[in-house]
């Protein structure tokens, strides 16, 4: 039972984000491109700054004060992240560069060792390229097949196809928890159950879910769970792969090099235990520490509150957008089934033209294929504009956005 949430004090919270004070083209910045990357609070900026000013050192091997402090901070961040997603063990948290690298890690290590000719890899049509291309490369190399679960007219995953496509030949099922185009929240727990029934592995692309809602890898029962730090108030260049420890211990290493070895001889090498086995070379130390601070920030607000705030903004925005003539909104109408990602088209105005007009008003949105070309092809839409929200966005900003859409519509209507 979720306890009654308290609402976020947005105007107070906005003061934590220095960039929100900026003007763009003489107008106050309205940042609606959060699905691409989020802005950073003062605390995260300070944490990364302090690392370089006060205890910059390489981790794990140094026997001096700075190395000790840096190692401690780095491993503390791992603990915070483990707790944040309810991992069973801290060593199940592998630091990567981003969600893309996390998924590639699974494809290259588990995939190469376990996928063979004629095996099936099941994805969905709404996956980001980062959860498609690694599997296509693997399938090409091994002679395996990639199949896609489609969506219905309302932008929801076809669960009948989930049951139809997953079978004895299926070795892994890879699904996004929240779509970066449609905003759809997928029933990952249910899909995972189907995968496991057939002995298949289950990977969740959580890049768009972890920043915006409470996640629980034990409840989801995913074998692998990938996300990026920069979309959740953290620095760029740091991401996470969560894997069940029994899999991670069995899988071959990813990159070879320093940090990941136990012993190296001229004849061969042995690996460290997890998580270090998968973290070759000097890692993004400051990135991990910064992500730990971002997790602190989000935890303090409470992920239920984050989700509730975005639901409220989305509900308001959907209502206002439905008043705009010639506007087509994609994705589920039911606010309970989506995150704050609103993709749309306005009449026959090209998405890039619309983004340019909104930019003149200080509004940052995304336009294009959103790294989901198979989905765009399936929907037969060449490009979309996308507004995506986060904790610092307000209804007043939505109003300015709607006015800008009206301006664009009138400009192109003549």
């Amino acid at each position, binding site marked *: 039972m979720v306890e009654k949430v308290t609402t976020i004090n947005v105007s107070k919270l906005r003061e934590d984000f220095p960039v929100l004070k900026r003007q763009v083209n003489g107008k106050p910045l309205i940042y609606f491109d959060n699905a691409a990357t989020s802005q950073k609070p003062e605390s995260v900026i300070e944490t990364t700054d302090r690392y370089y000013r006060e205890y910059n050192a390489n981790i794990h091997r140094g026997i001096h004060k700075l190395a000790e402090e840096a190692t401690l901070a780095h491993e503390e961040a791992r603990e915070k992240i483990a707790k944040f997603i309810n991992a069973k063990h801290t060593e199940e948290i592998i630091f990567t560069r981003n969600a893309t690298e996390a998924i590639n890690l699974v494809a290259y290590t588990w995939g190469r060792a376990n996928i063979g000719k004629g095996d099936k890899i099941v994805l969905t049509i709404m996956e980001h390229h980062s959860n498609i291309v690694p599997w296509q490369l693997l399938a090409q190399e091994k002679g395996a097949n990639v199949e896609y679960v489609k969506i219905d007219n309302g932008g929801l995953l076809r669960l009948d196809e989930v049951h139809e496509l997953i079978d004895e030949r299926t070795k892994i099922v890879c699904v996004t928890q929240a779509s970066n185009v449609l905003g759809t929240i997928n029933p990952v727990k249910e899909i995972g159950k189907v995968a496991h029934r057939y002995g298949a592995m289950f990977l969740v692309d959580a890049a768009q879910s972890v920043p915006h809602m409470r996640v629980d890898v034990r409840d989801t029962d995913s074998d692998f769970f990938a996300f990026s730090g920069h979309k959740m108030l953290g620095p760029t260049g740091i991401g996470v792969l969560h894997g069940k420890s029994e899999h991670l211990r069995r899988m071959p290493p990813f990159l070879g090099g320093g940090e990941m070895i136990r012993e190296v001889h001229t004849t061969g090498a042995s690996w460290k235990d997890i998580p270090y086995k998968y973290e070759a070379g000097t890692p993004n130390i400051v990135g991990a520490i910064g992500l730990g601070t971002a997790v602190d920030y989000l935890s303090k607000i409470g992920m239920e509150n984050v989700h509730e705030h975005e639901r409220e903004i989305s509900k308001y925005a959907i209502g206002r957008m439905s008043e705009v003539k010639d506007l087509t909104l994609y994705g589920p109408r039911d606010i309970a089934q989506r995150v704050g990602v609103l993709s749309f088209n306005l009449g026959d105005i090209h998405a890039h*033209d619309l983004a*340019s007009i909104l930019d003149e008003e200080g509004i940052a949105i995304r*336009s294009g294929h959103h790294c989901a070309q198979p989905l765009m092809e399936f929907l037969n839409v060449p490009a979309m504009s996308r507004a995506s929200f986060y904790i610092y966005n307000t209804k007043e900003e939505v109003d300015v956005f709607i006015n800008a859409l009206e301006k664009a519509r009138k400009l192109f209507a003549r």
Partner: protein
Amino acid sequence: MSSEIYKDIILDYYRNPRNFGDLQDPDVRAKDSNPLCGDIIEMQLKIKDGKVDDIRFKGKGCAISQASASMLTEAVKGKTLDEIKAMGKPNVLELLGIDPGPTRIKCALLGLKVLKLSVYGYLGQAVTDEVKQLV
């Protein structure tokens, strides 16, 4: 209702593109797209005495790409192939009357790239790096 980038003239060319369509028996045609946004432009040329005798374009995409391609077709009628080879970004900016900025400049240059591809194709010459790097 003013917009810095979308001056009336650009919207006019976008809504009512000049020289849009196909030529009968063109001497050369070329086509290219902008991988960033999928904008497509095709150009068809009739060449006479080393000059552009007639020209049409077709395409799909944003206002900047379509308007600048249309403006180019008007500007190069009667020009020699050498003159077209010598054209560059400043010529396109002059036609548009605005600088669309670093992210949108490629939209504006797609038409010029396709025009130059046509000329090099007609002459049977290798396309220069300068042309390849336009978009």
